[in-house]
């Protein structure tokens, strides 16, 4: 039983309905699959050679380099965005109003713009400066993608860090002040270590989203996985067409992102168990809500 609010123990009539529904749904699913198979096969999209050409060693190397380029951009952007996002979260929690305003402005601006536009923006500003100086582009495609990803994800991550700090019981910072810690001691010794640990699942989920978003580097010619996939189709004497190329790229991407999202979910479950135990030790009536959100998959943007 799925165990949601709608489902109760079924009686004989309900069980019969479920059996009939199961039968009908299975038949419908099989029919849809057959129809799709028939259409694709009729168009020759399922011919073995169209797929086996993908496993040719030169093609595999070509695609593999793309996958590595995707991971390289994701790791670089992920690390830098975490550091920058952390800095902006600190700024946003600062006591000085101008510092706070600057951080709020940064976060609100870069969270609100399409990432694709930012990638174009960074790339074209870079090339226009290079043209003005008559030299080479300063950033190139790799760093243009990374810079745009950092602008966007540092804004998102700083909100995640801030949510972590706010989810802490105020007794933590009060206790730190009571034992005579300064503001920075309180932040770095008491508040942030706990806040960051709580937010690890949300950060991992954001990294899954970031990995998906590296694909947008396609538009400025960064040779990442999807672009290499496009390059595989209809190239030279290969039988691979766009359909096979993008479906295969999609499957590999799915496995990668699904694994990351699954890790985030596992971490979150473990953490909420640990927090519940800790809360029960302290106060049996206290119900802790992490506020890290559902991390079944990567985020929408």
């Amino acid at each position, binding site marked *: 039983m799925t165990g*949601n*609010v709608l489902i109760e123990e079924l009686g004989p009539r309900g069980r019969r309905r479920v059996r009939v529904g199961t039968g009908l749904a299975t038949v419908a699913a099989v029919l849809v699959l057959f129809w799709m198979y028939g*259409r694709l096969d009729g168009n020759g999209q399922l011919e073995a050679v169209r797929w086996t050409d993908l496993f040719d060693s030169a093609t595999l190397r070509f695609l593999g380099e793309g996958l590595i380029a995707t991971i390289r951009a994701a790791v670089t952007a992920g690390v830098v965005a975490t550091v920058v996002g952390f800095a902006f979260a600190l700024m946003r929690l600062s006591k000085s109003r101008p510092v706070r305003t600057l951080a709020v402005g940064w976060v609100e601006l870069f969270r*609100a713009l399409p990432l694709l536009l930012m990638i*174009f923006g960074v790339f074209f500003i870079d090339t226009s400066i290079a043209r003005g100086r008559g030299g080479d582009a300063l950033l190139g495609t790799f760093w243009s993608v990374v810079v745009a990803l950092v602008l966007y994800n540092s804004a998102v991550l700083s909100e995640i860090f801030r949510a972590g700090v706010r989810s802490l019981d105020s007794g933590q910072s009060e206790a730190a002040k009571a034992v005579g810690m300064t503001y920075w001691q309180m932040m770095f010794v008491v508040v942030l270590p706990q806040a960051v640990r709580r937010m690890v699942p949300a950060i991992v989920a954001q990294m899954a989203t970031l990995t998906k978003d590296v694909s947008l580097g396609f538009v400025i010619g960064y040779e990442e996985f999807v672009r290499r996939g496009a390059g595989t189709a209809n190239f030279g004497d290969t039988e691979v067409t766009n359909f096979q190329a993008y479906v295969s*790229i999609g499957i590999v*991407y799915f496995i990668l992102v699904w694994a990351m999202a699954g890790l985030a979910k596992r971490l979150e479950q473990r953490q909420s168990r640990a927090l519940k135990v800790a809360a029960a030790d302290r106060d049996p009536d206290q119900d802790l809500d992490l506020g890290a959100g559902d991390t079944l998959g990567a985020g929408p943007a």
Partner: protein
Amino acid sequence: MSWSEFFDEYQDPLREATWVTVKLAFSSFGLALLVGVIVVSFRVSPIPPLVRVAGWFVAAFRNTPLLVVLFVALFGLGDLGLVFDFYPTAVVALGLYTGAYMAEVLRSGINAVPRGQAEAGRSIGLGFAQLMRFVVIPQAVRTVIGPIGNLFVANFKNTAVASTISVFELTAQSQRMFNDASAGVWRVLAVISALYLLFLLPAGAVFRRLEARFAIKR
């Protein structure tokens, strides 16, 4: 190029592109709501194959980049005999992609309704339809206004990806203008960003207010 020359030259294309972005955002979001409702009704149903299919649908779209979804739709739908123009393809791809997230949001809304509410409804003799209409849906809808607002904003931003399949919306227009050196890259970026913010900032504010207005204090 001065500002007035800039606007003389680009006023009409910008208006056109903004209109395409807005149309795309709203039509794909409408489709996403429909897809989300259908998928979530499968997912919370007691019929195992429907639950499984809905689970696969959600996982597939949430863990694949939108760009890949768009390309597979562009090349795959044609092979299925469903030939669409670029714009309808973008609506379908965005609608399915955001629809998968929508299904998750709606499911979390249903799960947030305390079990006792449904049990209380049944104990006073409400049938399934009445239970849904008077007890579960009114409470579920109130908890998901905020997350649906976030999805609207994310979907609006994601319309930019449609520029990769020749839909002439704002980001495609920005690309054209970036290639016109006399337009000035900073100016192009500022103008296009301002046009996005013109819609996205009010949308965020409206949903935040709705959320605060309808939030359930538990």
